[in-house]
């Protein structure tokens, strides 16, 4: 990491944390200004996150998609990008309290647990020299971002369900600013449907690339296998919903399992199941 990349990263880190607190404050005091400031902090953090990716790209001389550190920086960017779109579409700011901290935790993970060697600007290895790199990784960032947003919306769904069972005086006030369960369910569903379409593209571009680099479009490499597991979990979600009418709580549970599979496909596979996909 050099100067600008470092500064932009730190700014995004602080902005996402501030946004999380502001969104939290908004739920606690129901004052419009706290929510508005939360959105602005998120937008500024996202701008800084973008700047960190651009600075990285300038430092390395290639797309910032070539190792685990760069992917996580992109993952946080994808989460916030999809979130801002959904916040705009849903016209509510409360989901931020569950979504923005996911991006913040990823930034914290980069700061604390990614070894400095991965943050050096080193030239890319021959296997990554392909025009498929950009599309494959970019689609991964977008689909993972959409799944993270569905995860946050599912948590908000559970939070609202919990609040509905309580009987203190705060309850009615909080419920007033929370979207209805039906709306949360619907937007979580749309995020998953979109993420699923894009995840399919991730797997297909990966297959085309693997056929060119390794001679097989599918090798049951751990990364391939776990991306397929993730894909199957969300395929199960969509089928259960469309053919069996699974909505609400049961859909929420499947969305949580799906995002756990997303996280395992990145973190779990990288640390426990080494394979072809060793760069990220």
């Amino acid at each position, binding site marked *: 990491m050099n100067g600008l990349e470092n500064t932009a990263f730190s700014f995004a880190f602080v902005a996402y944390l501030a946004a999380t607190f502001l969104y939290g404050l908004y739920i606690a005091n129901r004052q419009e200004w706290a929510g508005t400031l939360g959105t602005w902090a998120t937008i500024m953090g996202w701008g800084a996150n973008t700047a960190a990716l651009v600075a990285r790209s300038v430092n390395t001389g290639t797309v910032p998609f070539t190792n685990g550190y760069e992917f996580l920086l992109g993952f946080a960017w994808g989460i916030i990008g999809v979130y801002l779109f959904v916040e705009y579409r849903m016209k509510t700011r409360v989901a931020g309290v569950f979504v923005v901290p996911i991006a913040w935790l990823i930034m914290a993970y980069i700061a604390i647990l990614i070894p400095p060697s991965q943050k050096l600007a080193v030239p890319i290895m021959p296997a990554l020299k392909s025009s498929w790199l950009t599309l494959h990784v970019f689609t991964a960032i977008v689909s993972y971002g959409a799944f993270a947003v569905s995860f946050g919306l599912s948590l908000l769904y559970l939070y609202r369900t919990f609040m509905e069972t309580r009987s203190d005086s705060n309850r009615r006030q909080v419920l007033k600013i929370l979207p209805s369960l039906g709306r949360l369910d619907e937007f979580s569903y749309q995020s998953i449907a979109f993420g699923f*379409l894009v995840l399919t593209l991730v797997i297909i571009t990966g297959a085309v690339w693997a*056929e060119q680099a390794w001679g097989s479009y599918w090798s049951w490499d751990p990364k391939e296998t776990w991306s397929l597991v993730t894909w199957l979990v969300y395929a199960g979600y969509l089928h259960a919903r469309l053919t069996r009418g699974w909505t609400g709580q049961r859909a929420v549970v499947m969305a949580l399992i799906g995002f756990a599979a997303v996280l395992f496909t990145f973190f779990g596979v990288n640390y426990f199941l080494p394979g072809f996909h060793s760069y990220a």
Partner: protein
Amino acid sequence: MGSLITHTSFLIIAIGCILGGVYGFKGFVEAEPGRTLALNDVPEIKGRVPEDLALRVNNFWIDWYDNGTPSQFNSDLTILQGDREKANRIIKVNQPLGYSGIKFYQSGYGNAYLVQFSSDSPKAIREGVPAEIPGTDLLIVFYQNQMSGNSNIPGLIYAVYQCQERVAFGEASPNQQVNINGTASFVYKEKTWYTRLEVKKDPGVPVVWIGCGFLLIGLSFGFYGLSKRPAS
């Protein structure tokens, strides 16, 4: 409609996979620069390509970055049928060579050493792979000696075997004659490489890509229908 296209696409992908499994093959070859190999000699390929189809490795080299890490692995290949040159190309990682449905991929490499026995012409011997010493019943095996020479021409350690038993052992430096118990001798000339290539045929691949295309079309229809619904 989207659902029908999506589910049909799995059938197409499955057909592609089966086609590849039934009519495809995949094998590996290893060769030093200058070697010509008959593809039929590869066990996985035997009988599935024309008898006289051969592959010549003209050269192999590594491009390096300034920091000493590899930037690209290159093999200069010629495809031969009988004595006619059919195709010629430098393949790299991510840039295979295709010839009548067969694809050649840069898959790996290893160390080899050019060694001259008595007055024969120098021969490339792979690290760790026993080679016969011409005109004797001796086998010789070479390893890089990490303690001598440099990365361009490292020193070697050799061991000589006769009927499973080690009869000689020692170090070899570049361009110095080494005598083996008075029965044979060799000169280590220089270090070279061998290249490892994947040779593959999979007629199912285009079918799989068509299936993937239908899958994306089907899912896009489904998503389009969903996003047009009024949000509740």
